């Protein structure tokens, strides 16, 4: 269901008019990078969004009419009011650092690690920002659109065991 008008009003009261859109009954609000933490704090503490459903990212490289490279997506929900809200932050190289929201939602831990692993977005203040899916020695960010689907040969980079050796 669309976000409560009171929620949007509270956000606008604090940050001025924010780009807002609606798609199939879901409200999306774009906030600026330096306002992210403050906006999230407001949503968490005062507007009772107590559940961080997901943190993910979209790479808009070569996307038609895209002005920004990365769109970071936070899906929020409130178990009190059943409200849902999508918060987006646009990022461009070389400014790929955003504050971590782990202080507000503990569940952000692995979600932010996954976005870091796949897109190389750095979450400032995350206590343990390591790769979560790919091996530690992996160097690329595989879900970026400039990374080839078949990789750069990492999958062939292993010792070959013959019968005599093992």
């Amino acid at each position, binding site marked *: 269901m669309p976000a409560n008008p009171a929620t949007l009003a509270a956000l606008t009261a604090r940050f001025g008019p924010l780009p807002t859109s609606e798609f199939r009954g879901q409200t999306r609000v774009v906030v600026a990078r330096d306002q992210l933490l403050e906006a999230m704090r407001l949503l968490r503490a005062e507007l009772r969004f107590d559940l961080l459903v997901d943190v993910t990212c979209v790479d808009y490289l070569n996307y038609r009419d895209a002005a920004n490279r990365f769109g970071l997506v936070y899906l929020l929900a409130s178990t009190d009011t059943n409200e849902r809200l999508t918060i987006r932050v646009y990022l461009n190289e070389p400014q790929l650092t955003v504050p971590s929201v782990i202080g507000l939602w503990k569940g952000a831990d692995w979600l932010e690690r996954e976005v870091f692993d796949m897109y190389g977005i750095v979450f400032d203040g995350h206590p343990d920002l390591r790769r979560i899916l*790919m*091996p530690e020695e992996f160097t690329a960010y595989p879900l970026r659109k400039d990374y080839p*689907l078949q990789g750069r*040969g*990492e*999958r062939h*980079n292993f*010792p*070959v065991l013959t019968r005599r050796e093992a």
Partner: protein
Amino acid sequence: MAIEVPENVVVTKLDELASWCRKNSLWPMPFATACCGIELMATGASKHDLARFGAEVFRFSPRQCDLMIVAGRVVMKMLPVLQRIWQQMHEPKWCISMGACASTGGVFDTYAVVQGIDRFIPVDMYVPGCPPRPEQLIQSIIDLQEMIQREGTIEGREFELASRQQTKRALVELPMYGRIPDGRTNDGRPMSQPIRNLKSEI
């Protein structure tokens, strides 16, 4: 002078006796990483009854196994684990690559999936299919048993052969790609050479 063999006595070679014992008590190590693993479980269950071939006891410790069954896709994070488990298994040991993914990467031609485990560990039998039916897996175990009986020796000399040291590739081995008897593929490369030029991919 002919030596008279008493009744109930059979004369055989020690190699053959050892192979006969080995082939009828294979202990599979189920390396089931994906959907093929379900068919592997079905193979071990009562309906298909792998016990008929003496290979029903699946062990999850590589120290107790001598038949690695790789069932499913192996990702690049998993491959070092697979190699470590293979090294931990006792000799003599064999490996069955079950399904399209384990043999060639299958449809998963992506950065994360190893394009056939035979690039990195020795494989004795390939089972095609996505997933192979339990009957196919059973057939491959029977074929492996025949192979053990045919060439097995008590000290495992057959594993030292030069042909056994080469890396094989599943697609070259499959009959649909043809195979010229002198160990060359149909475009003339020696069998030991990988299908693609890995250097250019890296």
